[in-house]
């Protein structure tokens, strides 16, 4: 099978072209030694199946950034039959160097000048035929967004693949990549003779929008207002959708699965329904949120606003070793950690991405909020409850800040903060839907197995050995709670609460349900008994622990899928558990010492 690599600078519409060619069928491939996801798709080209791989955007083949290393790593280890180079027509005067670098490697290549519609509007004319002659490489003007020239590009690729080429072996490329050549002069000569460009061109619409959105005083308030609206949109629309899915799963269970399994032994019922089926339900609950999140994020990212957000927030974030884009993901983490973690893929420096992924699970997500609402209503007066909630948000921000400050040295950012501000563009509905679809499939492929196994494990711990009452102290989970009593007593967490924390590993949404099972009571009766057995200091300590320790299995699964590192995932779990204990300990012991 022939292999085609798609290569281009960031913000050239390379992924748009890839999505246009691949439709919804692209897969995340596995490439040895590469820690970022590379999408690939099998396409029919001139009667043969070819594999098209979307390489990360890069500025320079000899560059030092993580993505540039990934591309070098890929080209020098995997044989490539054709490179399709995508460049932004409006910036051809500086981007052409990439095509010259590829040509210097001796790889067969075709050059696609994308965004030709935009370039034409701003008065840039390119003599593609003359450029092709000088480059010794076919050149085609296309618009990946609207599809103009894309079929021709594929035909051209098929023709080029059929021509016999002597391609360099990957090892030779490796050697060539070490050497640098002066490409500058040739680029200038080609541009001069083939491109006509206004001296300085600016997109008037973009300039005018930026005057408002990046205004010295208005910029930040507008940014927070926009974030608030997007946040509200995702979670007010997402919640009913999640409820519908939960309702459908419940109907399926009561009308079909329960009668079907009525004659099965109790343990099998528990295993299949409370274990596996609930695990599937946990996975399903995330689907609407992930789709909505990426519908919104695609608009924010592709419109060019995310880079503007980075501009506005960078002063604060740079002190934490993060950048403004990390701030957007952190904010979204306050809704749900899972899509926020997936969204960090926009950060191209691995160090900074890992640091952002380490702090996101500390954001007080909406699932944790439910637990806190219940407990504050149980243990605090209506006057004090809002203060308690507010203090939990403060703790959440403080732990994020502390974690970033402590770990920024361990995850250094090796990418200079130099970002392009692309002109404002609106993504097409097709681009938006494809992104949402890809992300959900990615989540299901990577995380669902892990989540179902985790739910099953917690079910086993809280229901076995056979014959004991579920969620009682006689279960394995009860024994674990007893085992950890010496650690949990100093933070005021008794054996019942310890059991609830074990359930909480699955998802915070089920903590209240778990408490109901543990105490054998529901609703007001549960609140009443909890208020009798626990005082507010214990309740607060429990909430602090719940806030900081591992948010849920889905977050762990996503951390592992996105970081591709078990070590990092374990670090995140261990750090959050340790920090949760220390914070609860300090709170509980000082409150007791003060006589509360």
């Amino acid at each position, binding site marked *: 099978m022939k292999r085609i690599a798609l290569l281009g*600078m960031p913000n050239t519409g390379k992924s748009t072209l890839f999505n246009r060619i691949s439709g919804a069928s692209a897969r995340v491939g596995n490439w040895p030694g590469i820690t970022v996801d590379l999408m690939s798709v099998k396409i029919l080209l001139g009667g043969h199946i070819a594999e098209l791989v979307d390489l990360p955007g890069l*500025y*320079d083949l*000899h*560059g*030092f*950034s993580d993505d540039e290393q990934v591309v070098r790593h890929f080209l020098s280890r995997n044989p490539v039959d054709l490179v399709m180079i995508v460049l932004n027509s*409006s*910036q051809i*005067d*500086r981007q052409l*160097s990439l095509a010259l670098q590829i040509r210097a490697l001796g790889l067969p290549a075709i050059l696609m000048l994308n965004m030709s519609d935009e370039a034409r509007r*701003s008065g840039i004319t390119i003599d593609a035929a003359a450029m092709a002659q000088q480059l010794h490489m076919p050149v085609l003007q296309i618009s990946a967004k609207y599809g103009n020239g894309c079929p021709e590009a594929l035909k051209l690729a098929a023709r080029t693949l059929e021509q016999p080429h002597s391609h360099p072996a990957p090892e030779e490329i490796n050697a060539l990549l070490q050497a640098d050549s002066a490409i500058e002069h040739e680029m200038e000569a080609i541009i001069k003779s083939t491109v006509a*460009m206004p*001296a*300085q*061109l*600016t997109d008037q619409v*973009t300039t005018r929008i*930026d005057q408002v959105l*990046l205004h*010295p005083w208005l*910029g*930040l308030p507008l940014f927070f207002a926009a974030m608030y609206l997007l946040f509200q949109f995702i979670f007010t629309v997402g919640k009913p959708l999640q409820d519908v899915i939960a309702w459908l799963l419940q109907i399926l269970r009561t009308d079909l699965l329960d009668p079907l399994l009525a004659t099965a032994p109790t343990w099998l019922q528990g295993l299949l329904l409370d274990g596996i089926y609930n695990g599937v339900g946990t996975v399903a609950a995330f689907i609407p949120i992930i789709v909505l999140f990426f519908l919104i994020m695609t608009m924010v990212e592709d419109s060019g606003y995310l*880079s503007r957000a*980075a*501009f*506005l*927030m*960078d*002063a*604060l974030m*740079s002190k934490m070793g993060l950048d403004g884009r990390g701030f957007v993901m952190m904010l979204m983490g306050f809704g749900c950690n899972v899509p926020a973690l997936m969204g960090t893929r926009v950060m191209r420096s691995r160090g900074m991405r890992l640091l952002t992924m380490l702090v996101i699970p500390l954001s007080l997500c909406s699932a944790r909020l439910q637990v806190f609402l219940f407990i504050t209503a149980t243990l605090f007066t209506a006057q004090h409850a809002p203060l308690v909630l507010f203090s939990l948000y403060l703790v959440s921000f403080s732990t994020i800040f502390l974690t970033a400050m402590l770990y920024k040295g361990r995850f250094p950012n*090796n990418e*200079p*903060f*130099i*970002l*392009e*501000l*692309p*002109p404002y563009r609106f993504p097409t509905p097709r681009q938006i839907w494809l992104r949402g679809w890809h992300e959900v499939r990615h989540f299901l492929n990577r995380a669902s197995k892990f989540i179902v196994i985790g739910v099953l494990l917690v079910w086993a711990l809280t229901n076995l050995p056979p014959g004991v009452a579920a969620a009682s102290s006689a279960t394995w989970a009860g024994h674990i709670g007893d085992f950890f009593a010496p650690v949990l007593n100093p933070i005021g967490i008794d054996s019942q609460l310890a059991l609830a924390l074990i359930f909480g590993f699955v998802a915070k949404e089920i903590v209240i349900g778990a408490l109901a099972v543990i105490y054998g009571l529901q609703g007001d009766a549960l609140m009443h008994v909890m208020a009798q057995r626990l005082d507010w200091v214990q309740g607060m300590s429990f909430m602090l622990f719940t806030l900081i320790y591992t948010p849920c299995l889905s977050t762990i699964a996503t951390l592992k899928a996105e970081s591709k590192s078990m070590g990092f995932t374990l670090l995140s779990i261990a750090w959050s558990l340790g920090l949760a204990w220390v914070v609860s300990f300090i709170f509980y012991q000082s409150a007791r010492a003060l006589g509360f």
Partner: protein
Amino acid sequence: MNMTSLTSLHPGQNATIHAIHAEDSLFQRLAALGFRIGKKIELVRRASFNGPVHVRIGTTDIILRLSEARRIQITH
């Protein structure tokens, strides 16, 4: 002729890039984005609280932190 760093420009002012004092990796990234000696550069705006600067070179708008902008010498 007055040689200073890019950070001394006021919003709306133009200048010419005179020198870039940067190590290889930064130099390469700047070059790829169009920062070359002799090119015209405009400072479009500054972010609040000593945040990044927004500059324009030819067809490209770029934001960069002050620490990087200081490495770029200009004449105007």
